[in-house]
């Protein structure tokens, strides 16, 4: 049975069900207990599972990242909340040099089944140190997996899949999505990691999007459909592993591509997707140059208008779609 839940509620339900199904799953993070998490995602879980499994921590991001790794190495399935994705920079050594590598460095003997959940993205007026979108940094590291759900139903399913996965998973939540609603099945289910999803089928243009950009792409698609332009929206869902096949199949069909993501445009996910298209036979299907829409080459500014201008908006996607169909 499904019912309408917000993205935050869907994640909370996923956490609650994962903890009910598996006693080795526990949560740790700053202010996740009585406070309920900076964005309220873990609200109420302390009352159900108690302070040992919903563990409030001091502000020690590096220590906590290592703590999750150590617990995962020895039989637990920790889910660590890092309060803002910006703060994940404080965890870099542990995540990149330890968590991602121990299995390989040790010849395949170790497993690190941990999830690091973190709210990302701009649009809240929190400015440069609370608005980062750093998913591509982690997607560059073999040994890590990176997912970024765009809808409540995907958020719950990807979370349950991430918790069951035996590798470290960076689970990127977008702050602007927390209050968005969608139909979510009540029972536990998983959405596979590494599988993109066609959120809207179309024939003229492929828009490849991630996270909050999926809903903006869908809105743009709806608007241009009135002009007779049919847009296919591919939601990557996972950044690593990357489902290139779904993207290429769409491109072969449409011959036109716009890639839209919030992180800084240069050297990001868009470059990777464009390169994969260029390296494949899908290149021969292109009727127009590929367009990448990403964040501007600046930190996220505070002022409302500047902040909006720093990352792709619906109008930017509309303009890009019109540009590729005009060729």
């Amino acid at each position, binding site marked *: 049975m499904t019912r309408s839940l917000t993205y935050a509620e869907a994640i909370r339900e996923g956490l609650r069900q994962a903890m009910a199904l598996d006693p080795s799953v526990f949560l740790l993070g700053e202010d996740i207990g009585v406070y309920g998490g900076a964005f309220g995602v873990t609200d109420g879980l302390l009352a159900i599972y108690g302070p040992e499994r919903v563990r409030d921590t001091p502000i020690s991001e590096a220590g906590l990242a*290592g703590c*999750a790794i150590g617990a995962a190495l020895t039989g637990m399935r920790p889910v660590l909340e890092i309060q803002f994705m910006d703060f994940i920079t404080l965890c870099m050594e542990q995540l990149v040099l330890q968590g991602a590598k121990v299995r390989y460095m040790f*010849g395949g003997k*170790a497993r690190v089944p941990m999830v690091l959940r973190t709210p990302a993205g701009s649009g809240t007026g929190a400015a440069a140190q609370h608005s980062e979108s750093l998913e591509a940094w982690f997607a560059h590291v073999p040994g890590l997996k990176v997912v970024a759900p765009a809808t409540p139903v995907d958020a719950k399913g990807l979370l349950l899949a991430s918790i069951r996965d035996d590798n470290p998973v960076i689970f990127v939540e977008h702050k602007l999505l927390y209050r968005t609603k969608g139909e979510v099945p009540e029972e536990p289910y998983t959405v596979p990691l590494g599988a993109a999803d066609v959120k809207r089928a179309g024939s003229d243009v492929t828009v490849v999007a991630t996270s909050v950009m999926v809903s903006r792409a869908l809105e743009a698609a709806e608007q241009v459909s009135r002009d007779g332009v049919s847009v296919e929206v591919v939601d990557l869902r996972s950044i690593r592993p990357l489902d290139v096949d779904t993207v290429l199949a769409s491109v072969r069909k449409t011959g036109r591509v716009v890639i839209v993501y919030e992180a800084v445009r240069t050297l990001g996910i868009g470059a990777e997707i464009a390169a994969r298209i260029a390296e494949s036979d899908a290149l021969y299907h292109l009727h127009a140059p590929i367009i990448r829409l990403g964040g501007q080459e600046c930190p996220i500014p505070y002022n409302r208008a500047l902040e909006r201008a720093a990352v792709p908006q619906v109008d930017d996607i509309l303009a890009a779609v019109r540009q590729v169909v005009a060729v």
Partner: protein
Amino acid sequence: MKTAIPPTDRGVSRLRTMQLIRAFEEKAGELFALGKMHGTMHLSIGQEAVAAGVCGALGPDDYILSTHRGHGHCLARGADVGRMMAEFLGKDTGYCRGRGGSMHIADLDSGNLGANGIVAGGLPIATGVGLSITMRKTSQVCVAFFGDGATNEGAFHESMNLAAIWHLPIVFVCENNQYAMSMPVTAAMGVDRISARGAAYNVPGETVDGMDVRAVEAAAGAAVRRARAGEGPTLLECVTYRYKGHSKSDPQRYRTRDEVEAWQGRDPITRYEAQLMAEGALTPERAEEVAAEARAAVEEALRFAEASPEPDPATLLEDVYA
């Protein structure tokens, strides 16, 4: 090739562990000089009493986390010498199938969660191991080894604090070998003793003579008992010395030959042998036998390693993910 320790011969068993570490390290240095080893390595000659004493205080189900200078910890924990040597030579039979080398040896079967190429890198991980032990309600203990240099990393301080507030069953073992590469410990911190740093976290700190295996084992044993009893972590500073340079590229301009010789005069192996002999528990002949056995075990390990196959390049991408 397991370094099994007969319980009836406990005094000599610590000597055997220390001799095995020394023989292994000397052979590793020799192999490096001959160009048979790739990369770099960090020898623990002079520090054998810390590895032997601390690991001697542990039970079979306990965990250790080691450092870049970790060969001794691994051997003292009971690692197979042949598989260690094979890893040094980058062989497929090595502990890490030739993926890790000297700085990343792990033997999960003996609770050795791995050496670490990052100074203080294992300390946050130790808090998770401690938390896992607490949540799984076992009576295990986790020993985290690190050097004096690690205590100036933020990771040390965050980990000490987490271990303290959650009363984690961790023994933080600092091998204070006087230098963080070339930086003298006296110039790198504002306190006289590393053990004093425990006070900031309400973690009991103790300094012991790290050249005395019995002193180390006694102090480690007390810390392990505290941890097992649920009384929380201990910071144990073992004052020791590395006879060799930091790594194979160290010109050692930061210390004098006199200083090195003065420490060598307190050699943990010679000293322990003298103690045992004075107690009538060891004869010079038996002492020589123990040393010869250690050298023979290392030679046998080397033969195994040299005869072992190289990893197949086709397996390069195996085990990145579980």
